[in-house]
């Protein structure tokens, strides 16, 4: 039962990724009109534009280009960057690792603060403010005025993990704030609903100790919607990363996508965007797996 459910979900994410790849491809190849003209600028010689288009292969039929791109992509070959004249994949790999460090810290900072009422209220009002605004305030307070934390995430070469962590605290806080309010709201709603449910009342009336009721009945059910939301917010997080990483000079996937967009480096841009989509797809399958393990109803169906 669980295996079939997961297989179905994994297949669905593959379909989603397929559609996404078409959208990303069309966005990168079709929207600019003439890729060579967009990259080389309005003053470039027409022959240079044609030569460029021929070299990168955008003068071929769209379907051929797409097939070529996606088959190479699935084998890990993401194409060559226009700006760096080098394969895209290593850039994406390094940037992704950096971004995951940042996202991981942001998630870790959030854990354990769910139930605090005052923080929920704070999170709700700060959650609607754009990340670069909360970053500015945090930089001013903790970086400029208090001198507690470094103002950029660009740690010195060869810094140890603890130093790296120190450099990452300030960039991760705005991300925490933005989706903290949202998650807090969902987690609270889930808890309230689980506390109210018949199975919780039955468990209490059966005479189970309160700690057992909380752990085995309330928490399991209350976490389910939260897990789904966290997974969907991972995608959102990547959007926040574009702004945060640019602001803090951090070389993650967001900053990479941003600089690729600036330089009209379409292979890099497409690879970065599709990678973000893939991370999101994997995260949502993992979330489904976790929900399936936690959800008493699905477990019962398996037995």
């Amino acid at each position, binding site marked *: 039962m669980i295996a079939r459910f997961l297989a179905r979900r994994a297949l669905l994410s593959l379909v*989603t990724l397929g559609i996404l790849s078409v959208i990303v491809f069309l966005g990168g190849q079709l929207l600019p009109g003439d890729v060579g003209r967009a990259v080389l600028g309005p003053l470039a010689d027409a022959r240079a534009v044609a030569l460029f288009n021929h070299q990168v292969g955008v003068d071929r039929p769209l379907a051929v280009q797409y097939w070529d791109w996606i088959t190479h992509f699935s084998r890990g070959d993401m194409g060559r960057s226009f700006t760096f004249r080098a394969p895209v994949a290593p850039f994406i790999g390094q940037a992704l690792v950096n971004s995951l460090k940042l996202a991981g810290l942001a998630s870790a900072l959030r854990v354990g603060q769910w139930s605090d009422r005052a923080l929920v209220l704070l999170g709700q009002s700060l959650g*609607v403010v754009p*990340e670069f605004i909360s970053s500015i305030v945090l930089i*001013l307070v903790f970086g400029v005025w208090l001198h507690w934390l470094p103002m950029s995430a660009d740690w010195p070469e060869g810094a140890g993990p603890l130093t790296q962590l120190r450099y990452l605290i300030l960039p991760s806080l705005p991300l925490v704030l933005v989706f903290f309010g949202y998650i807090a709201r969902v987690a609270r709603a889930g808890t309230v609903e689980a506390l109210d449910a018949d199975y919780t009342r039955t468990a209490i009336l059966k005479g189970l100790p309160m700690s057992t009721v909380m752990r085995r009945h309330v928490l399991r059910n209350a976490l389910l919607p939260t897990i789904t939301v966290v997974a969907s917010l991972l995608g959102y997080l990547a959007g926040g990363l574009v*702004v945060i990483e640019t602001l803090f000079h951090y070389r993650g996937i967001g900053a990479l996508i941003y600089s690729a967009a600036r330089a009209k480096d379409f292979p890099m*841009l497409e690879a970065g965007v599709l990678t*973000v989509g893939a991370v999101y797809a994997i995260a949502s399958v993992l979330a489904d797996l976790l929900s399936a393990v936690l959800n008493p109803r699905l477990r019962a169906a398996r037995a």
Partner: protein
Amino acid sequence: MSATADDIARPAQPQPASGLARERWHAACRSPTLIAGLLILAFWIVCALFGAGITPRDPYADDLLATLSPPSAAHWFGTDQLGRDIFSRVIVGARDILIVAPLATLLGTVLGTALGLCIGYFRGVLDDVVSRIIEALQALPLVIVALMALAAVGTSNATVVVVIGFVFTPLIARTVRSAVLNETDLEYVAAARLRGDGTLAILFIEILPNVLPIAIVEMTVRLGYAIFFVASLSFIGFGIQPPSADWGIAIAENYSLIGSYWWTVLFDAAATASLVIGVNLVTDGLAGVFDT
């Protein structure tokens, strides 16, 4: 035949509608959230409308003898790198974002409502295909979708409006679609069909008025996001373009000075935050009013 169908469809409707409207109006007047939000929003709209007409100084005039001077009686919020009065620039800076964000939201709402009406009413293959595409797009953060599209088509106020409008379209369509699904099985739709109304008339005259409140609440929610996006995009250089006095641009221009000249970024940041919070208060307030 058509007369009897008319009789079934038409009565009963107007009476509760106007009663409900009055009740909602009273609820709106009693909602502190809504009123606070509207006050903040009204303040910025006045700033945007009158712009340079109400500022104490010329927001675009530089004064190279008074660059980066801290807040004082002469310059309430200090001056920037070119000696321009930041207080005046913050007031004028409300204009572009308050044009671009609402226009983008309006475009997204109109397109999204039309799309949602169609896929919700016809369902079938069209619904499946569009829903899949919407789902795929949701795997990407909107900022990244917008960034990619703007890199491809170039950045100007018009392209920002169109790109954000298109990015919002599927999201609004999804909300409207689910509202339409609840309506299509109701009797008034069946009555309109029996009466022989055309599909377009059923969609836009019969169903649309009933899903409009949902579309409007969705629109105010989206307006909050639109302001969020336009501000973020302007900050990274893919939104409103200089020489506008836009807050996001001002923050990007002065960000490197934050260590010594905090006033060059703090007031623009506060203005952005207050506008976003104001719109969200209105949204929360409206949602509360429509729930009653």
